[in-house]
């Protein structure tokens, strides 16, 4: 994860493979974060984010296929890491995702919103908590881009730590 340390993976994601991918990315980020003196919790926060996002691909992605991209940025301002998961899906899931993203990304207090959802969603089968958890626990800012049946969810965080 240096100035151009972008990582991009094309994946077919099953519920069983999500943990394997999470472990790989966590090790990858931990190694880079240690080398750069970045936030010591960065790898764990990235791992949580990736697990929650890739489970959506396993559940709702067309052919369970998606791409995962980790892209550090070192332009003006604080250094940041953006995790992007892209996949195609159904119109119904796009609607649900848009609603969840709108609600979560604009909540003034991410933790209060997460706790509210824990209570509200407890009786429902689908999680409904993943995005709120990413924002509250992994401290990532979320955004969504849609192009026809393709969705691109991005989670961004400051890396903290020293200069490369």
């Amino acid at each position: 994860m240096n100035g151009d340390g972008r990582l991009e993976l094309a994946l077919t994601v099953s519920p069983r493979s999500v943990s394997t991918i999470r472990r790989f990315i966590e090790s990858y980020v931990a190694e880079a974060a240690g080398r750069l003196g970045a936030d010591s919790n960065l790898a764990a926060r990235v791992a949580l984010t990736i697990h929650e996002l890739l489970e959506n691909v396993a559940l709702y992605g067309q052919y369970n296929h998606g791409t995962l991209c980790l892209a550090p940025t070192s332009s003006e301002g604080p250094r940041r890491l953006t995790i992007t998961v892209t996949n195609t899906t159904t119109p119904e899931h796009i609607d649900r995702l848009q609603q969840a993203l709108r609600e979560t990304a604009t909540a003034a207090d991410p933790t209060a919103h997460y706790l509210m959802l824990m209570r509200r969603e407890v009786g429902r089968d689908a999680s409904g908590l993943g995005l709120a958890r990413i924002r509250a626990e992994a401290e990532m800012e979320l955004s969504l881009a849609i192009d026809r049946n393709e969705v691109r969810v991005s989670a961004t965080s400051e890396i903290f730590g020293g200069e490369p």
Partner: protein
Amino acid sequence: MSASLLPGVDDLDFTARTTVDGPSVRVVMTGTADLNTQKQLEAFLAGLHTCAIERLATTVVVDVRGLEFMNSSCLKRLVKWIFMAEAELAERRYRIVFVANPKAPWQRRSLHALSSMAPELVTVQE
């Protein structure tokens, strides 16, 4: 300490086992709790609740030090279980103590969120 009659969860990546000693109930979870095990976890927690009530347990200790990761769906199952305990009459209600791994940063945050669902009932030990 006796082994429980409560069936555990023994998945490829996740285990949950209970031991019962009189009114003391202890659960140990290891591995990764995620999409693969959420239904099993839900059934396990429902059985655990029944076991705790039948044994007149005052505390259920849940040792998650060996839990590598838990997804949001499984966290929601824990919330449901906490609400089941909270809904009991005061004399049947039991406390829930999570024993966490301080080296797993996600546990601190996730378990704190769980404890805030019912702070008088749920505590976290590291």
